[in-house]
């Protein structure tokens, strides 16, 4: 069971870390100063949550690994994050849509994880859910403004939605690990959150005068098994190079 819990914690942590790292790439590149600070803040929240999750995971694993070991010395195939969070920042609309699609799920997930029977995870969720509620407020308010903004912002946001929507199926695929841990009261079956999530995002997307793209035939998945899009390798290369070049370096 510990092995499965470790795997589950890794998935949660990798989602937060990769999304946080993507946001960190925008530091000093956001459209306006205030938004630059906002995105960096949200990125820091994500990375902070990831750190707590890695710490708990590492302790459970009992191999004397630190969060840094797990983050900097793991290949893409060992990363278990969703494909959605590793997608590039693109334009501001794409960054916001990616964030919105994750945050609307994150609120539901971490709200339920507060009741996890695995106490350290419940504790992390209690802190995280407050932060994610703010992230959701930020991304959903931007979605409304971009969608219902100018002709150009509307068009770009719709394009971002068309581009990213196909990665949302994967969020709600529950496998054996998740099902088993849910029965133990440790995890939350993500498939059980889909209906509520769809209701929330449909309402917001409609309010933003955007439309939900039609579902394609192909299901984009594989992140949970380490099968990633080409983007993750590039992200990891940049994130890991300093730690790998100077393994003993102190920050």
């Amino acid at each position, binding site marked *: 069971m510990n092995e499965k819990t470790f795997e589950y914690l890794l998935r949660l942590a990798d989602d937060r870390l990769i999304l946080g790292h993507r946001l960190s790439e925008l530091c000093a590149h956001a459209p*306006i*100063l*205030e*938004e630059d*600070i*906002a995105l960096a*803040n949200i990125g820091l929240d994500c990375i902070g949550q990831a750190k707590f999750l890695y710490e708990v995971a590492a302790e459970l694993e009992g191999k004397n690994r630190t969060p840094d070991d797990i983050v900097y010395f793991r290949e893409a195939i060992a990363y278990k994050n969703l494909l959605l969070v590793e997608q590039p920042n693109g334009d501001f609309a794409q960054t916001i849509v990616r964030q919105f699609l994750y945050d609307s799920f994150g609120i539901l997930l971490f709200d339920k994880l507060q009741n996890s029977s695995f106490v350290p995870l419940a504790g992390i969720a209690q802190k995280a859910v407050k932060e994610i509620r*703010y992230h959701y*407020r*930020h991304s959903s*308010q*931007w979605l409304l*403004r971009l969608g219902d903004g100018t002709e150009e912002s509307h068009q770009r946001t719709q394009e971002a939605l068309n581009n990213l929507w196909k990665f949302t199926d994967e969020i709600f695929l529950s496998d054996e690990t998740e099902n088993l841990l849910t029965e133990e009261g440790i995890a939350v079956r993500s498939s059980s959150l889909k209906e509520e999530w769809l209701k929330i995002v449909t309402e917001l997307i409609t309010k933003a005068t955007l439309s939900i793209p039609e579902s394609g035939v192909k299901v984009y998945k594989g992140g949970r098994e380490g099968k990633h899009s080409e983007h993750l390798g590039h992200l990891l290369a940049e994130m890991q190079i300093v730690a790998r070049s100077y393994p003993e370096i102190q920050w």
Partner: protein
Amino acid sequence: MSESKNDQLDLWEVFIQESDNSPHQHAGSIRAADAETAIQNARDVFARRGKTKNMWVVKSEHIIATKPEDIPSFFDQASDKVYRHPQFYKHTLDDELWKKP
């Protein structure tokens, strides 16, 4: 875009109250297109670190300020007879009478 066009978002002033009963104090200013993003930006810039109980944002254009030429007639009062200053009693009360041992 014409040269005279102001492409900056509206300017807002941010006031932060650190605890119950303490005054809202000016923290700085931010730019935002509307009230909701203004209060979010204010939070991200000024209230993420440190203690905050409550926050106000107000459009800078709604603040009526004195002009430099107002200084002599507005502010150049006699400096003797400190008790004539409205702050005199406040300071006295704050500093001495109301101070708990």
